């Protein structure tokens, strides 16, 4: 029985359910569980819910060591850029250990962080850094776009025996949607067709799914049918669902909040040009952030980021209109 829930609430629900289910799951990070009145502390106690200093290297490194020895840590990192001060733990420790030990040691953990906060947070707090985490064997990366995905992917992330980076989008925090009650786990590597269509295949993640669905709605009024695909996890990446859609449409628009050379879109384009080349009837079109840092002032910020209008234009362009 699904019920309406906010995106943030859906993530939290999955975390609580998984912590109830498995006492090895612990949750910590900065600025959480300050007092005994905190709901998570009340429910799970101060051993399993901990507040940390501003020490990302230790926060994530401790999670790696705890995971190596039998816990399943979920680390709240707040903004994904904060991980950059300790990126070695994300890219060169957590995902390497199982392999380097010849499979003896597993590292089940979740690094949870928000991203893409396009609301005047300026140059250092609004970025999309997921490209840094792609092509890192051993690491999985999740980008939920709806409350239901937020819950189902969080449950899957916590149950996964590998290090998982769970990146939720700040602009979606209070968006509401139907979320299945109780046990609900979304397998990784399975793209979701957020809207079926026949003229153009459009692939987007996170907040860009919302913009793309709005654009698809607008275009539908003009008789253009867009299929909107959300990979949901970018590592592993479900290329097959995109290729299947291209068999129908032959036209591809890739939407990404990141700059072009830091985008998932570029990776998807690369897969398509090798494995779906014959399916393409036209050049692939990209709608990405412009090549600047994110400016503070609103008119400039809006100018550099993808939006519904830019997506509509790209879809028409790929149709030669």
């Amino acid at each position, binding site marked *: 029985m699904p019920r309406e829930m906010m995106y943030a609430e859906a993530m939290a629900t999955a975390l609580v359910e998984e912590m109830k289910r498995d006492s090895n799951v612990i949750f910590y990070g900065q600025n959480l569980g300050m007092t005994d009145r905190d709901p998570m502390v009340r429910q799970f106690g101060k051993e399993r819910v901990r507040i940390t200093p501003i020490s990302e290297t230790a926060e994530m490194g401790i999670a790696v060591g705890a995971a190596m020895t039998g816990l399943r840590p979920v680390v709240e990192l707040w903004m994904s850029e904060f991980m950059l001060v300790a990126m070695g733990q994300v890219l060169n420790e957590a995902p390497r250990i199982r392999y380097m030990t010849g499979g003896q040691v597993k590292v089940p953990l979740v690094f949870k962080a928000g991203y893409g906060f396009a609301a*005047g947070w300026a140059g250092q*707090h609004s970025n999309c850094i997921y490209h840094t985490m792609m092509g890192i064997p051993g690491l999985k990366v999740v980008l939920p776009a709806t409350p239901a995905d937020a819950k189902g992917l969080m449950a899957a992330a916590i149950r996964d025996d590998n290090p998982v980076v769970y990146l939720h989008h700040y602009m979606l925090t209070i968006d509401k949607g139907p979320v299945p009650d109780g046990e609900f786990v979304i397998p990784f590597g399975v793209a979701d067709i957020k809207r079926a269509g026949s003229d153009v295949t459009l692939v987007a993640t996170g907040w860009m799914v919302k913009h793309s669905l709005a654009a698809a709605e607008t275009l539908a009024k003009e008789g253009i049918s867009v299929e909107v695909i959300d990979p949901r996890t970018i590592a592993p990446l479900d290329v097959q669902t995109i290729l299947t859609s291209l068999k129908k449409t032959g036209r591809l628009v890739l939407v990404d909040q990141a700059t072009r050379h830091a985008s998932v879109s570029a990776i998807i384009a690369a897969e398509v040009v090798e494995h779906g080349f014959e399916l393409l009837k036209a050049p692939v079109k990209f709608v990405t952030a412009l090549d*600047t840092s994110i400016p*503070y*002032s*609103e008119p*400039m910020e809006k100018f550099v980021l993808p939006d519904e209008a830019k997506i509509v234009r790209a879809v028409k362009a790929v149709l030669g209109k």
Partner: protein
Amino acid sequence: MEKREALSKERLIWMYTQMLRIREFEERIKRTFIEHPGAIRGHSHLADGAEASIVGSLATRNETDLAMPTYRCHGYPIVLGSPAKKIMAEIYGRKDGLCQGYGGSMHLSDPAHHFPGTSGIIGQSIAHATGAALTAQVKKTGQVVYCFFGDGASKQGAFHESLNMASVWKLPIVYILENNGYQVYTHVSLEDANEAAGDPLSQKAQAYSIPGVTVDGTDVLKVYEAVSTAVERARAGRGPSLIESKFYRFSAHGNAITVPPVPTQFPEHEAIETYGRKAEYAAARARDPILQFRAKLTGNSTLSDEAAKKIEEGVRAEMEEVVQFALKSPFPAPEDALKYVYA
């Protein structure tokens, strides 16, 4: 070291005035969230409560010395001489802003007034400030760098690495740890090993074999004394010092974080909102650095009540102009976003 000469009456009044200007500027920021919703975007962090620490520190500067603060950076340029209206315009995202609207509240910068810039990422600016001190040493400019950061930042690896290198290289820098009791919602006792053990945070200096002192950051003259000693040491080529300046943040960490178009403004202080510590907060307010200094100056008749009133009225009038200037300043053109990516 020989006793340094006493501060002149003019200088004392200047210091008091700067403290008032910081306070009034920040009050106008808070009012902006109510009177002009949406005028300030993102996240703003205020200096109310830090006035004595900021002014007492910067009052020791030589003309060309540099200040390198964090994202909580409104107070410093006000004292350094940046036009307050350009600071406000930046926070409003306008073309006349210090950074033409590219940076906003967290990323003020005014090299012309000896303020190279900030970082919004905890601890990183400590390394940048240390690098500025390296420039001063290599180029033999005689400058001292004032590096300001919070209690929370002292737990970031960048703090540890920077202070060790500054000590080994004897760099001309003073590290001013602004212990305002909290990092966002977290009381320092929950995250700092020294505090948890009842030791001062200045004890961290032992790890770098440099002087470490804790000073009452609500007493502008005590701050001035402690920082002067550290600056003299730095300028003499004897290396860095760590000063823990203890005061209290009067406003919440920053404006509430909301997703547009949900409006935002400053919530209650975390001491009350999160911990229910009304008494702690009241006690801190009772030790308001501005009231303390005003009492001292009027008490020893450096300042008459009328003179004090005049100053206060002058500052209020200035900041009213500042807000009006910022409100009238145009926004940058959208396509200006393409500028300044590369030098």
